[in-house]
């Protein structure tokens, strides 16, 4: 339809206005003086088009001036000038830009085009901006066409490609030209060629251009589909659309009488009630649908109410009509091509989405791993259930927040916060170990409950000190933004940083346990404290240090988690159950198990979320159910220790 109007307008332009190129801007304006002075959306299009296509180098400046109230007409003889305010009225230039003296304000009528006309001028100006010497302006013009694709932009865009010398912009122009061609070109072969020309391109703009072509609407028809309709498929009521929806379509199309709604029936019965009886049925008996239908039918027979479709009639009407899903686009060649192209795209897209899902899963896994690695030491290696572990994570995050209060430079503050968070939570961990846990070794259930007491106390203290609202822990600017490979696959830098941090910790853990004296002693003490003691190791000291290191790592994890999550007193407790799950699922006492557990939990959660993206709660629910079942089959986790190392 829009194309039709455009063609008509062009035809009108050709008839009314002398052929383009033959005239200068001044001549065109002069020839259409009254029209220009009283410009309105409905009438001015031919003039603007003529100006735009005149080939006069001054046309762009004239149009621009017109839109910006810089065009005036001399009242005396109706000659147009470019005007600008000056002390004694207006400074005048003729339309080629040459100085034409000044004029008093009263001699000149300033043209004030309305918003609609300004919009049309702006569209006409696009072709000039597309060839503007300033690349930034050209890019802006391309962007504006891309955001609001129109048929009118196609011709100027094509014309501007040849003269484009910036290779990047040229590629962008060619792509945009193809996108516009596949939607708006009058020649359907050209559109089909443009569609297939894209191959397996997964750009958002291409999908945005293809999807409107495949827009459909549902129509109802008696018998076959109407002539010339581009039918996507036939719809069977009851299978593809509900009976009610199908019947509504018939009603809207005027092919069937409206159905009686329960509310309307109720109103009709009430309106026709006489002495507590309606249609031969007593009021008290109207408490079933059958009785109400009987009363209404009686009224229908008596002619008191309009005839409404009963269920039988509705069913018959549905059977007599067919329903079709029809493309809005009339040309089947184009829709077929678009469908085929979208199929190719969706295949590529699925692969890309899988890759993106993989990245998401990896980053979630590294978050879980980071939250759990401290537990892998305290719970995995030492066998101490520390329910306050989550609060150590929170403590780390709050340390980061406090550091940022003193050091405003975000990069520097993070560099200070990481070791400081380690130090603070290390000390907290040592204190907890000395004061509480030391007395409860071998009593894991009591440890669980005692550390839970610590946990609720710490949480409340955080609330009292820092308040209940979220505190900001801002990441440095260089961690903002995302690394994107294309429109689908991208990952934010902060998640990459967390992934790297998780890898660093994995390396640190392995180095600490396998390559240091402390690690050796830790392993000795966990396996057999008495034997270790008789070899000259002080188990008390080792336990204290190990617990402190595990807690310290939780603090660092807290800084990292605080960078992307809200820092509240509940930050850590959100992760505590998942962290224990990660360690248990992976296999207690083995860092590779923790890694495997985190990967499995993170990956599965993302996959489940992918099936139902709107519902992360359901994903977590199914995740936990899965873990409960998983424990049934591998009670000792993915990587179970065997033999003596298992300790029993």
């Amino acid at each position: 339809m829009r194309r039709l109007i455009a063609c008509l307008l062009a035809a009108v332009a050709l008839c009314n206005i002398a052929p383009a190129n033959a005239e200068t801007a001044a001549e065109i304006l002069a020839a259409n003086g009254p029209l220009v002075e009283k410009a309105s959306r409905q009438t001015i299009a031919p003039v603007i088009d003529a100006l735009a296509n005149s080939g006069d180098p001054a046309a762009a400046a004239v149009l621009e001036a017109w839109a910006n109230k810089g065009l005036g007409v001399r009242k005396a003889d109706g000659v147009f000038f470019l005007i600008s305010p000056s002390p004694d009225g207006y400074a005048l230039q003729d339309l080629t830009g040459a100085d034409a003296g000044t004029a008093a304000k009263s001699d000149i009528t300033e043209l004030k085009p309305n918003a609609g006309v300004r919009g049309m001028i702006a569209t006409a100006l696009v072709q000039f901006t597309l060839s503007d010497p300033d690349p930034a302006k050209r890019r802006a013009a391309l962007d504006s066409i891309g955001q609001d694709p129109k048929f009118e932009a196609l011709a100027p865009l094509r014309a501007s490609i040849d003269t484009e010398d910036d290779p990047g912009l040229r590629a962008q122009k060619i792509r945009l030209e193809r996108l516009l061609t596949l939607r708006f070109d009058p020649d359907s072969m050209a559109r089909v060629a443009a569609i297939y020309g894209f191959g397996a391109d997964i750009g958002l703009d291409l999908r945005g251009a293809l999807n409107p072509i495949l827009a459909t609407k549902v129509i109802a028809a008696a018998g076959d589909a109407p002539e010339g309709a581009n039918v996507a498929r036939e719809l069977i009521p009851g299978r593809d659309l509900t009976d009610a929806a199908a019947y509504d379509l018939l009603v809207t199309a005027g092919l069937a009488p409206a159905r009686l709604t329960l509310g309307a029936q109720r109103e009709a019965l009430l309106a026709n009630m006489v002495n507590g009886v309606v249609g031969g049925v007593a009021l008290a008996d109207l408490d079933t649908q059958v009785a109400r239908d009987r009363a209404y039918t009686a009224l229908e027979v008596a002619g008191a109410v309009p005839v409404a479709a009963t269920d039988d009639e509705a069913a018959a009407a549905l059977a007599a009509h067919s329903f079709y899903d029809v493309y809005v686009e009339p040309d089947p060649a184009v829709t077929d091509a678009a469908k085929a192209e979208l199929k190719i795209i969706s295949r590529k897209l699925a692969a890309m989405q899988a890759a993106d899902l993989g990245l998401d899963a990896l980053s979630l896994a590294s978050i879980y791993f980071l939250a759990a690695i401290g537990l892998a030491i305290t719970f995995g290696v030492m066998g101490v259930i520390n329910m306050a572990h989550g609060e150590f994570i929170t403590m780390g995050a709050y340390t980061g927040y406090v550091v940022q209060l003193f050091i405003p430079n975000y990069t520097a503050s993070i560099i200070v916060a990481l070791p400081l968070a380690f130090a603070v939570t290390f000390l907290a961990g040592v204190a907890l170990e000395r004061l509480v846990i030391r007395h409860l070794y071998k009593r894991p259930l009591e440890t669980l409950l005692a550390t839970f007491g610590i946990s609720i106390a710490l949480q409340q203290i955080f609330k009292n000190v820092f308040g209940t609202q979220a505190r900001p822990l801002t990441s440095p600017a260089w961690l903002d933004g995302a690394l994107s490979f294309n429109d689908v696959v991208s990952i934010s830098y902060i998640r990459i940083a967390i992934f790297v941090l998780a890898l660093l910790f994995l390396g640190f853990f392995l180095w600490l346990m396998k390559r240091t004296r402390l690690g050796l002693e830790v392993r000795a003490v966990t396996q057999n404290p008495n034997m270790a003691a008789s070899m000259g190791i002080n188990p008390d000291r080792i336990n204290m240090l190990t617990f402190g290191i595990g807690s310290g790592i939780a603090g660092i994890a807290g800084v990292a988690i605080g960078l992307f999550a809200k820092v509240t007193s509940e930050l850590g407790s959100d992760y505590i159950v998942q962290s224990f799950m990660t360690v248990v699922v992976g296999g207690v006492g083995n860092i590779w198990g923790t890694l495997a557990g985190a990967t499995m939990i993170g990956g599965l959660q993302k996959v489940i979320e992918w099936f139902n993206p709107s519902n992360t709660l359901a994903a977590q629910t199914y995740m936990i159910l899965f873990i409960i079942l998983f424990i049934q089959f591998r009670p000792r986790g993915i990587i179970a220790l065997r033999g003596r190392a298992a300790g029993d």
Partner: protein
Amino acid sequence: MQKSYLMRTPSLLIFLATLALFTVFVTVAADMGWMSTSFVKTLGKTLCLCLAAVAMDLVWGYAGILSLGHMAFFAIGGYMIGMWLMYARTEEIVVASLMNGGLPATPQEVQQGIATQIFGVVGASDLPTIWGFAHSLPLQLLLVVALPGLLALIFGWLAFRSRVTGVYLSILTQAMTLALSLYLFQNDSGLRGNNGLSGLQNLPGLDAVGQDRLSVWFFWASAGALGLTYLLLAWVVSGKFGSVIRAIRDDEARVRFLGYSVETYKLFVFTLTAVIVAIAGALYYPQAGIINPAELAPIASIYLAVWVAIGGRGRLYGAVIGAAVVSLLTTWFTGGRAPSIPLGFATINWVDWWQVLLGMSFVAVTLFAPKGIGGLFDAFAGLRTPDRKGAPLGPDDGSLQEQEAVE
């Protein structure tokens, strides 16, 4: 000579007599107007919590299974009774409003009206399938015990079959209640998402009876349930069955080698306590008036364990005392009635600091008084701890410590 059972356990008679006296006192006080309706409700709710704690004591104190998921059963019981309360109450309102429309309501209209009333808040207008029994009180009451029982049976069977014990079981049960609460938080779970069920304090058909009366009735029901359950559980733990589950707590492997089916015993205890806790929940929530998925948060179940530990585990009366003391103190402190303590540089406002005190006192009880408050009664009755040179009663995680045990 074998003394009679009641003579051997004087605590049972003392407990029942105290409960009866307390009930009479509260009834009189409510009638005379000495006690506000809300306080009677608080006491009634506390009795329900005591009931849950007694069950928790059986499963943890006697059988050594530290379940951190029993409050899930409590909430399920509440949801089941809440469904009927809400349905029946809404039905009354809908039928009344349809009567005003001039025509008597058809069943479809009533159904539709109820669905819109209840589920309008989560943007749905159809009654989910799980509300299929909500119209019937007997069926819904059956579900109060059947659903948690079944869930506990399945979960327990899976867990005990694969020999998940100790802290692993604790974490697993915690995960179970977390999963349930996350599930219920969804709007399309069919139980109104995070809005939960509300208006449960109004009993259908009893509008004429004021809340002051209803609160006393519920108090009686709660006291009765607590008394009966206490009697039942005291009987359960007194005989051979009690000896077996205590043995399982202290040394599971040895009991297994003696030929007992450890899993069956554990499963029975787990399921029985789940049902008891669910009944407690079904009595609790009509007094609370509202239930939502936050009630299933893992922390609620940990509190249950905390009450038992503070009261002293392995003693039924200990659980009751622990639950009553801690929950009443919590009400008092968080109600803003406890006087603040000025320290000069700062003021300790108990609404903010009560939880810190609770957490710390819990650590202190675990470290210094494993017997909890129940230990005071032991000292009074002249019971002493066995001399085991510091060794616990058995090698298992749930076994009683030397100081917890009674000679």
